[in-house]
């Protein structure tokens, strides 16, 4: 019952049914010690699609997200991003772990926004945004700064370029973190509960920034508890529980979910 549900996912992922999906996960498993957190996740995300992962705490959403950019190494199954196998190399019928340096290269194309922002506190906002483009992509500093100012304008923080992260509110910090991730021009953006650490009145500004990115056609996988964001910005909503995908479909499933456990989960937000 639980696994085949995703098979009908490509029906809603209409925009690029013939192309290589931006994200293709098959049978992803992950255990921490004896605790099996992911019990075989299948998922396809097309380019330009915005997918929201919903589910109770401990359902494996964040772990799956962290497997996508190989912050956690999955124990089984496979994850392809833009057609490239993440973290491993299949060669002559055998699979090898990639070297750390190769994993590092793969991550450049995947942006990630964390629950606790994880800005670099010893650097100013601008330095945070240009750190990776200059240091990793070897972009000229002037060009990177120009792009940083453009991105900061986009997230509405042009006046905070010289501030240090701790001088900003949580919402402002998270918007800087989004700008920092965008500075790498990622193909895919991962959001790990981006508003969970924010005061309620600051959630709106971050969600507005994310909606803006969604409208611009950025491919996004978002773990969140903000049902309103899922309804307004998602192309597809995926429910996870106990390490499995329960249900998947357009945001309209939020109004009448078919799975009883999804119903129980959603009831708590209404």
């Amino acid at each position, binding site marked *: 019952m639980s696994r085949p549900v995703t098979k009908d996912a490509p029906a809603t992922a209409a925009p690029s049914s013939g192309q290589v999906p931006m994200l293709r996960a098959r049978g992803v498993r992950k255990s921490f010690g004896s605790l099996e957190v992911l019990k075989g996740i299948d998922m396809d995300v097309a380019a330009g699609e915005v997918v929201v992962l919903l589910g109770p705490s401990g359902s494996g959403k964040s772990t799956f997200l962290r497997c996508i950019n190989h912050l956690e190494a999955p124990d089984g199954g496979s994850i392809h991003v833009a057609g490239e196998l993440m973290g491993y190399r299949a060669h002559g019928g055998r699979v090898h772990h990639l070297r750390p340096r190769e994993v590092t290269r793969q991550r450049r194309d995947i942006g990630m926004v964390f629950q606790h922002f994880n800005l670099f506190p010893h650097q100013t906002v601008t330095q945070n945004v240009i750190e990776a483009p200059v240091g990793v992509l070897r972009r000229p500093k002037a060009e990177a700064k120009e792009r940083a100012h453009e991105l900061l304008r986009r997230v509405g923080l042009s006046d905070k370029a010289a501030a*240090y992260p701790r001088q900003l509110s949580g919402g402002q910090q998270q918007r800087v973190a989004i700008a920092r991730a965008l500075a790498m021009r990622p193909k895919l953006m991962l959001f790990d509960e981006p508003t969970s650490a924010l005061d309620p009145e600051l959630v709106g500004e971050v969600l507005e920034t994310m909606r803006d990115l969604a409208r611009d056609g950025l491919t996004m996988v978002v773990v969140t508890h903000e049902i309103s964001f899922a309804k307004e910005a998602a192309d597809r909503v995926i429910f996870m529980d106990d390490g499995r995908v329960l249900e998947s479909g357009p945001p309209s499933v939020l109004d009448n979910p078919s799975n009883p456990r999804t119903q129980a989960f959603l009831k708590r937000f209404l």
Partner: protein
Amino acid sequence: MATAHPPATTRDDPEEPEERAEDRADGNGPDGSATSHLDVDVAGAAPVRHPLRWLAIAVLAVLAAQLFHFLFTNPNFEWDTVGAYFTAEIIGKGIATTIELTVIAMVIGIVLGVLVAVGRMSANPVLRAVCGAYVWFFRGVPVLVQLVFWYNLSALLPRVSLGVPFGPEFVSHHTNDLITPLLAAILGLGLNEAAYMAEIVRGGLLGVDPGQTEASDALGMSRSRSLRRIVLPQAMRFIVPPTGSQVINMLKATSLVSVIALSDLLYTVQSIYNRTFETIPLLLVACLWYLVMTSVLYVGQSFIERHYARGVTRNAPQNFWDFALFRRRKRVHTPEDQAPKEPA
């Protein structure tokens, strides 16, 4: 005690007069007599008196007077001799040796210490074990023993050579030509210091939020880049204060090299008073110079700490002279008036 702090007695003094307790209840209770009790302006309130502090000051003043009397009237100090030697050239040479040793040993200690600390946290189990063993050994043997050991290395290894293991030798030297007292001192102090610095650096690295490494991983930074640019600068905040203590310790520990006849500050004054028997005044010269040098280090440390406090507090860093003169921070800075002052 009870008379010294009248307000403090109200809670635990069982013989507290009844009417005082009622007095308070009246003032604070909801049925307090009138709004006049609530209508208070705290501006110009009399400060709490501290009579015990004045007593302490009086006692200390007497003790200080005694000390100064002792210092200036006891002829055994021979202050004129102290003055004569304080700026003597030979003492200056000893100071130069002390500073040279401190700097070289600390540089070795810090560089090797960072490498050993990173090695101890490496994913490579062989490297971890080797670095762990290094710390275990060099921290476990007294530095004085290490100094004497390096100095006497020739007794163990008469010749040192470079070549293929168990095969032909390319270069060969007498150990005694190679290990001069200076080199023995540098090896003994530096290698020992590296073991302590490794633990300090490791503690600092562990103090940085693991989210910082994750963020740099997610941005596609290499391990070494993330360490250099993100983790180490933040760890510096935890590393600098104990390292400052280590430098001061090292400055004093260099006096141990007098046992291997290296003419540092202590050995120099010893060699003079062994001739002239002006033991106390010459030891005072050494003490005063050690104090001067450690004071300079103390001030320098505060500069470095302020540098690495960037972005840590919302307030502006404490003004240097306020810090040096133990003045308390008075002005309150807003984040806005500080941000533009911090150049990249």
